[in-house]
């Protein structure tokens, strides 16, 4: 039945498209209420920061020039001359960090609540793929300002996968567009950062949200639900939007009080600065490579670390299919311990990388 009420635009659309059916379907979604419900907001917050990234990224792309001769100067122009350019760039950089932080918290909360269990396996898989995509954004975006730190961090970062047999050299060469980090690399990183990754990410996010809409939010195993669920629209959505507003205030505070800096322009002929480090979310890999001895039974320590990270990534992606107990609605302390140890390892390696010279 078509709507007789509502605004003019709603009526106009409803006469042409199945708007009422869609609204009815969306309004049927409910969100469970229990002592762990707070963690449900982290997914929406991650999405909010991603939207901020798209908006600020679009604004930055109006002035940014992806060539070694102009990239650095264009970033300086954005900050020094474009009205509120400093704020837009600072928001973009800080939102990237907050997005990765929110994503990690969201992912580990999902892991510890075992929300990946049947029938939500595909939500977990798409979520882990989104993690890799977001880390790809971080890696490809880091080079774009073309300052010393960006240049040498990318130089070191692209050396690491080279040790992987068969595909390592080929992959790095494809990413760099040659043997050196130069104009080709910058163009490729830029196109991956602003076209390829956003397209894939938007598709993955859409799928993730669609599955969430269809299956709803999961209740942790063993959690007693004493209260009835609340409607997603409008009750939970209001809470979501309030959390986004708080996230926006925090982001503005960081971007305004601690504006993102810029180093000296990159000089490919200079030597790498001492104590160079990647962004904090790559520090666990960076520190693990430092832990590894140069040779283990005649095999390169770097290669072994890369293989270990590869295996861990596959295991992480396959968690819902490995944790059979959770699928049977039983507690699985082994997986909980694995998750806690992983969190501790990430925290310890990040702290060590920051505190050691």
């Amino acid at each position, binding site marked *: 039945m078509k709507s007789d009420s509502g605004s003019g635009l709603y009526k106009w659309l409803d006469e042409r498209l199945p708007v009422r059916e869609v609204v009815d379907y969306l309004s049927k979604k*409910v969100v469970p*209420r229990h002592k762990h419900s707070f963690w449900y907001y982290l997914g929406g917050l991650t999405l909010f920061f991603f939207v901020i990234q798209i908006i600020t990224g679009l604004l930055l792309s109006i002035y940014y020039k992806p060539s070694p001769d102009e990239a650095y100067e264009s970033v*300086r122009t954005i*900050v*020094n*001359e474009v*009205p*509120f350019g*400093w*704020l837009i760039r600072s928001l973009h950089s800080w939102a990237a960090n907050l997005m990765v932080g929110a994503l990690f918290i969201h992912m580990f909360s999902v892991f510890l609540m075992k929300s990946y269990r049947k029938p939500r396996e595909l939500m977990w898989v798409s979520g882990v793929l989104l993690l890799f995509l977001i880390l790809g954004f971080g890696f490809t975006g880091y080079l774009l300002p073309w300052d010393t730190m960006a240049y040498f961090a990318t130089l070191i970062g692209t050396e690491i996968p080279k040790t992987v047999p068969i595909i390592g050299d080929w992959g790095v060469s494809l990413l760099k567009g040659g043997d050196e980090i130069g104009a080709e690399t910058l163009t490729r990183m830029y196109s991956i950062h602003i076209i390829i990754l956003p397209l894939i990410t938007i598709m993955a996010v859409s799928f993730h949200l669609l599955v969430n809409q269809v299956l709803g939010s999961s209740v942790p195993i063993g959690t007693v639900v004493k*209260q*009835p*669920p*609340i*409607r997603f629209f*409008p*009750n939970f959505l*209001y*809470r979501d*939007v*309030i959390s986004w*507003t*708080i996230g*926006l*205030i925090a982001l*503005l*505070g960081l971007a*305004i*009080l601690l*504006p993102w*800096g*810029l*180093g*000296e322009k990159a000089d490919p002929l200079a030597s790498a600065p001492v104590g160079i480090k990647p962004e904090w979310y790559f520090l666990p890999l960076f520190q693990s490579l430092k832990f590894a001895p140069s040779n283990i039974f005649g095999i390169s320590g770097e290669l072994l670390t890369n293989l270990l990270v590869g295996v861990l990534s596959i295991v992480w992606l396959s968690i819902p299919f490995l944790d059979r107990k959770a699928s049977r609605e039983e507690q699985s302390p082994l997986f909980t311990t694995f998750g806690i140890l992983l969190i501790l390892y990430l925290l310890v390696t990040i702290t060590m990388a920051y505190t050691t010279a």
Partner: protein
Amino acid sequence: MVTTLCLVALLGTTASFPQRDALKDKTLVGGAESVPILTLPSYAERIQILGVALVLFGGLALLLNEKRKRADRNSWSI
């Protein structure tokens, strides 16, 4: 409508802040003494911008909270 008003107010208010003219001596990061790499609004000016943002978005959060309470009274749960 409230969000739109808040955004318009934010843009209108912050657009009136002084930006570049008197900022030649405000260097953020490194660079040669005569040519700063980045120039930014002063700390005081940035605090003003943050203050406006806090009032607007803090107000928006409070307003949304009131709307949430009203929605909860009407249809708290299924």
